């Protein structure tokens, strides 16, 4: 089935000749998933059913205290400076975006009156502007009204390089934000922008009040008292914050959604590790909700038998994968290893890469380690579903790997390790310390040993491995190893930024202080070109095809070896309802709607 046929179907649905359900059935029959079909329709402007909530409270509050556990605690509460999800989540209690991303990756209005679309005239046909209508009657916690001025301020604030906001990438491509009236704004982009729902949406789109931050623009941004004492529009008002420990809030009596929220107090406790967090929610029931349970599924299943809570999962785009170093990590050039001036002595050889791709037993890793928490995947780009390639396959086949290596002239030595031209086929395989990752390492190492590849394992404590400390040789961006493994994902329901992980401009090196996204240091002109095209392609179907092509290039060249497509995982008390976590947004995207069943 090609692009044209899909388009015909969509036209049929618009005209009422074909039902949404029938379309979905056809797509599923073709091996695509339900959400993919739904998103194809959404992208083509065919509206989905609005979400219906079964619980309709008649009054605000009365729910007592809500206790949630974030085993990495927030360290600051300004969403524009959020380092990682923990800070975004801490901020999300108090601040809100115009729209959140629901579990299917659709937009859910929060501070917006409605979601802009081609149909309601909100999204311009040329993809260069979008009109947002703000919800009326929204006030900040201190009583000031929320208006378009706040929107304009957030854009100016985040886009100013002197502010050093981490959200700058979402705002710098906005040419201007126009005020049409006090509650209507037009966002004008520098280029046609298919991903117009980046600025002011989701975890990176939370809006801070102009009247409290106006005096702290640019270089003074870090001095604002409100960085630690947020005043937002959210369901809970700020009470207390101890960085790295606890965030407390109380009900916002003037919240803009009637009869919400349900709880009177909110407490977010930090510290501990994922396993103890899982225990506190699933087994002992001390807490109502726990974020990001990176724990083996077997352990979670046992804890669930306690009957107090369950594991809630959301499909996102995170993928646990192995990267192959294209440069030589063992040669120092100009004070830098893995320098772009070197090439890896054997990992740049296609047969070696192909063999490694065959030596990762994805089904064993999926079934024995990740279980319900993920699924084996041949693709690097797994979500949103419309961007997932149907073309790739994976295989675990030691015999074929052996044949490929034999054919490439790698002969086994007396110790069983292959060598060619005096160079032994031995790899350093690094990752962060995490029981699941160490088990995966062991499984890969064993398969490699059977194929005559010697693997040496290395594991680095997460706070070092994922840090941006330029002085540390063990960070994942330095990549002073032959192969490495970690998990990464798009974080928003659009893969543009995510797929820049392999563009030439994003290559990390000493010259950019290892601040870049292309850590595998792979260079490919065609890939760069397709990525550039997708950036301003406004036709959703063509753009999806471009991303699928990029994914297929990565897999065919074995730039990465995807292992498991991981879900977002949270622990939820059995009495806590309507949490409905999304793989595309903060776990707290629906916090205002959470309630406890008595």
């Amino acid at each position, binding site marked *: 089935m090609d692009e044209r046929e899909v388009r015909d179907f969509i036209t049929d649905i618009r005209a009422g000749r074909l039902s949404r359900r029938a379309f979905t059935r056809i797509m599923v029959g073709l091996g695509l998933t339900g959400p993919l079909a739904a998103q194809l329709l959404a992208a083509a402007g065919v509206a989905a059913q609005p979400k219906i909530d079964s619980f309709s409270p008649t009054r605000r509050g009365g729910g007592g205290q809500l206790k949630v556990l974030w085993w990495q605690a927030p360290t600051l509460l300004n969403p524009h400076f959020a380092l990682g999800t923990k800070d975004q989540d801490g901020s999300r209690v108090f601040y809100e975006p115009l729209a959140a991303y629901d579990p299917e990756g659709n937009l859910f209005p929060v501070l917006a009156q409605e979601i802009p679309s081609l149909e309601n005239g909100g999204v311009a046909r040329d993809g260069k502007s979008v009109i947002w209508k703000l919800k009326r009657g929204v006030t900040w916690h201190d009583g000031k009204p929320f208006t378009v001025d706040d929107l304009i301020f957030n854009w100016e604030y985040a886009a100013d390089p002197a502010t050093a906001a981490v959200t700058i990438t979402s705002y710098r491509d906005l040419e201007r934000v126009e005020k049409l009236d006090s509650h209507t704004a037009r966002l004008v982009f520098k280029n046609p922008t298919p991903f117009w729902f980046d600025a002011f949406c989701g975890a990176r789109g939370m809006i801070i009040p102009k009247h409290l931050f106006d005096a702290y623009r640019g270089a003074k941004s870090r001095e604002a008292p409100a960085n630690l004492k947020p005043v937002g529009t959210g369901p809970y008002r700020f009470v207390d914050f101890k960085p790295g420990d606890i965030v407390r809030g109380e009900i916002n009596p003037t919240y803009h959604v009637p009869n919400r929220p349900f709880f009177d107090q909110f407490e977010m406790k930090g510290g501990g590790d994922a*396993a103890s967090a899982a225990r506190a929610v699933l087994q002992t029931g001390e807490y109502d909700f726990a974020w990001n349970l990176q724990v083996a599924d077997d352990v979670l299943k046992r804890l669930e038998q306690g009957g107090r809570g369950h594991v809630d999962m959301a499909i996102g785009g995170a993928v646990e994968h192995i990267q192959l170093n294209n440069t030589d990590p063992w040669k120092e050039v100009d004070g830098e290893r893995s320098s772009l001036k070197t090439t890896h002595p054997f990992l740049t050889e296609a047969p070696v890469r192909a063999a490694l791709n065959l030596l990762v037993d994805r089904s064993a890793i999926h079934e024995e380690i990740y279980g319900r928490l993920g699924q084996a995947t041949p693709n690097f780009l797994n979500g949103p579903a419309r961007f997932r390639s149907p073309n790739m396959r994976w295989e675990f086949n030691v015999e074929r790997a052996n044949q490929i290596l034999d054919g490439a002239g790698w002969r086994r030595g007396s110790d069983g390790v292959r060598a060619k031209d005096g160079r032994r086929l031995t790899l350093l395989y690094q990752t962060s310390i995490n029981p699941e990752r160490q088990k995966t390492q062991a*499984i890969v190492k064993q398969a490699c040993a059977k194929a005559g590849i010697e693997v040496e394992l290395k594991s680095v404590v997460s706070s070092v491995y994922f840090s941006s400390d330029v002085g540390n040789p063990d960070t994942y961006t330095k990549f002073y190893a032959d192969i490495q493994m970690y998990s990464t994902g798009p974080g928003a329901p659009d893969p543009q930024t995510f797929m820049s992980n392999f563009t030439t401009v994003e290559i990390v090196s000493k010259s950019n202080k290892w601040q870049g996204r292309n850590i595998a240091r792979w260079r490919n002109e065609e890939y760069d070109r397709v990525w550039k095209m997708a950036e301003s392609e406004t036709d959703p179907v063509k753009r999806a095809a471009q991303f699928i092509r990029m994914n297929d290039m990565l897999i065919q060249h074995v730039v990465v070896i995807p292992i498991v497509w991981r879900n977002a995982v949270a622990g939820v008390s059995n009495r806590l309802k309507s949490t409905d976590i999304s793989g595309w947004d903060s776990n707290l995207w629906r916090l205002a709607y959470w309630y406890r069943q008595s």
Partner: protein
Amino acid sequence: MATRGASEAVFAVSAAADATPSLWLEAGRRFRRHHLAMVGSVILISMVVAVLTGPLVWRQPINEIDFKAKLKGPSWSHPLGTDDLGQDLLARMLYGGRISLAVGIAAMLIAISIGTTIGATSGFVGGKLDNTLMRITDMFLSLPGLPLLLLIVYLFRDTLRKTLGPEAGIFILIVAVIGGLRWMPVARLVRAQFLSLREKEFVEAARSLGAPAFRQMFRHLLPNSMGPVLVAATIDVAAAIIAESTLSFLGLGFPPDIPTWGRILFDAKDNLDFAPHWAIFPGTAIFLTVLSINYIGDALRDALDPRKVLGR
């Protein structure tokens, strides 16, 4: 030994050689009277024998992954059960025990030799040298252990790894670092002993009879100050085994697939409620080793301390 030293000094210096066997016989007799130490010795010796010869008898590989047998309790095919990858725990324990015990003993030897040398020199020579050495000891004591350890590991890990290979390189590094950071208490103990023994009559007697410095030191002072050192040594073995697990925990020790006892324990912690055997066996091994060594140290101190009178 103090009385023996004194009498020997009075009667004949050359007769000392003849007295030695009976000293050790006496010590052996005293040692055997310490029942817990005897039990400890038996346990420790059997552990050492087990880790040395065990892998020759129990031929299961340490890293054979078998998901069908994962998290199984003790059985005939896996006497100590399996871990969550179905790897045989007995084989891993035997292999890991070699490393853990070797790290503990080697680090202890380093700490003791540096500590004794510095302490003895300081206490015997005195004066400026004493002052300098003790200030150096103070300096080392004030260094924050873990950050320094991390720094050294970062600086030298790759060089050693390249020259000696991942396992041997890390072994030498860990042993040197742990040993090199634990000699200070020993040095202080030895110095304090020397300072007090130096003024004792039997040493004065030896000195007045013209015993040269090294003879006073090795013949009279050192043997008499060994008691506290031995106790410190036993504690060091235990501390080194535990320090190695700390390093493994931080990812700076041996590669994650080398099953040292500390590493097995770390891997087991999330499954404690479900597969307790996985943690119990390495935990017991560490516990028994440390306890045995402590009792042995205790008994050795009693045995080598002639001032302590034991009933016959």
